[in-house]
């Protein structure tokens, strides 16, 4: 047998021995995640959650929900954005705010919850944009407002366009109900999750 052949076979043997199976890794991963939680090392925890709109991704810091990604969004891109802006110490795991969000979202889609009371982390939204989202959060279940309406409520009646852009970049859709904001005159306007999703949410709330 040639030396080269023997070398390759030795390498193959080295690679193949000491294997671990999927189940073993999952177990080790679980205990690592539990330890990361108890040591307070997780910057952002995330989990996927199925709803009538499709699968949402719920992202939370210790302080609260920081970002909800809608089915149409690129979840990996959202994670990369969070890594840059909030923390790169991101893990797929549950956390108290995520569990709470799952329950409230389920109740909301079942028509049994009208106001979200889960903790929110506003890190991703600053200044005027945050004021616009605060104003949006005040629109009652089943009612709608206009871009001008939220701009006014945010203290800048003329900043209609800026209000529209703040809503388009709402990191907390559904929870901060930007779907309740329509064009003056009642046209639907835009929605990050697609117009169909906007209609679905408004119909659920019997707002249209």
């Amino acid at each position: 047998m040639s030396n080269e052949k023997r070398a390759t076979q030795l390498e193959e043997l080295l690679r193949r021995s000491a294997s671990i199976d999927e189940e073993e890794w999952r177990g080790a991963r679980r205990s690592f995640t539990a330890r990361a939680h108890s040591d307070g090392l997780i910057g952002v925890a995330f989990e996927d959650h199925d709803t009538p709109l499709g699968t949402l991704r719920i992202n939370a810091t210790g302080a609260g929900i920081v970002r909800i990604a809608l089915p149409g969004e690129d979840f990996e891109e959202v994670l990369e954005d969070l890594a840059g802006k909030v923390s790169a110490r991101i893990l797929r795991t549950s956390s108290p705010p995520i569990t709470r969000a799952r329950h409230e979202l389920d109740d909301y889609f079942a028509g049994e919850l009208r106001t979200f009371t889960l903790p929110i982390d506003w890190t991703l939204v600053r200044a005027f944009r945050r004021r616009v989202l605060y104003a949006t959060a005040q629109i009652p279940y089943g009612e709608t407002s206009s871009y001008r309406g939220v701009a006014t409520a945010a203290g800048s009646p003329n900043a209609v366009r800026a209000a529209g852009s703040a809503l388009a970049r709402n990191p907390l859709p559904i929870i901060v109900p930007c779907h309740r904001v329509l064009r003056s005159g009642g046209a639907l306007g835009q929605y990050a999750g697609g117009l169909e999703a906007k209609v679905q949410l408004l119909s659920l709330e019997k707002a249209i």
Partner: protein
Amino acid sequence: MSGEKQMSDRRPPNPRRRPSASPLVPFETILEQHGPAVLRFCVARLGSDRGEEASQETLIAALRNYEQLRNPAAVAGWLFSIAQHKIIDLERSRTPVPISHEQIEQLAGGREDTDRIEGIWPQVARLPPKQRDAVALRYLADLSHADIARAMDTTEEAARRNVFEGLKRLRKDLAASGPVPSHEMTPSAVLPT
């Protein structure tokens, strides 16, 4: 107030902003990409229980210090250099300790922590340390020579040489000690014919 003064005043260390401009990928991605190899690497070196312990210590230390990582491209080398240190720490802590009744029963039943140091790895463990580490990083962790160099704090050329010398010595040892106790492969495949 001068603009310069303002600048220096406005520079408190912000833990959220890293000094380096290159973005870090979410730790989750690192974990899924390298986590199983870290576990494999530690278990092959230390056995199931202590191996899993070393693996967890490695990943926790990595997560704790992740945002201080200067060169995201070298993440694999960095991760396995931590693993390397954790393994050494745990090997050092292998001092005789009073053992419990259950442990005695376990040992009597033939169950030891070395159960998973299987196949060819006991032979690898007997290589000179640098060769042993380089071979383990190459074949258990599946690292490139550049990443091995980083993990072992040496040059790429030295890493390549350590892997090469390790393999050479391993072949020689195997030829001298007889067949490899592995059902995955016939002895003749590793022994010179």
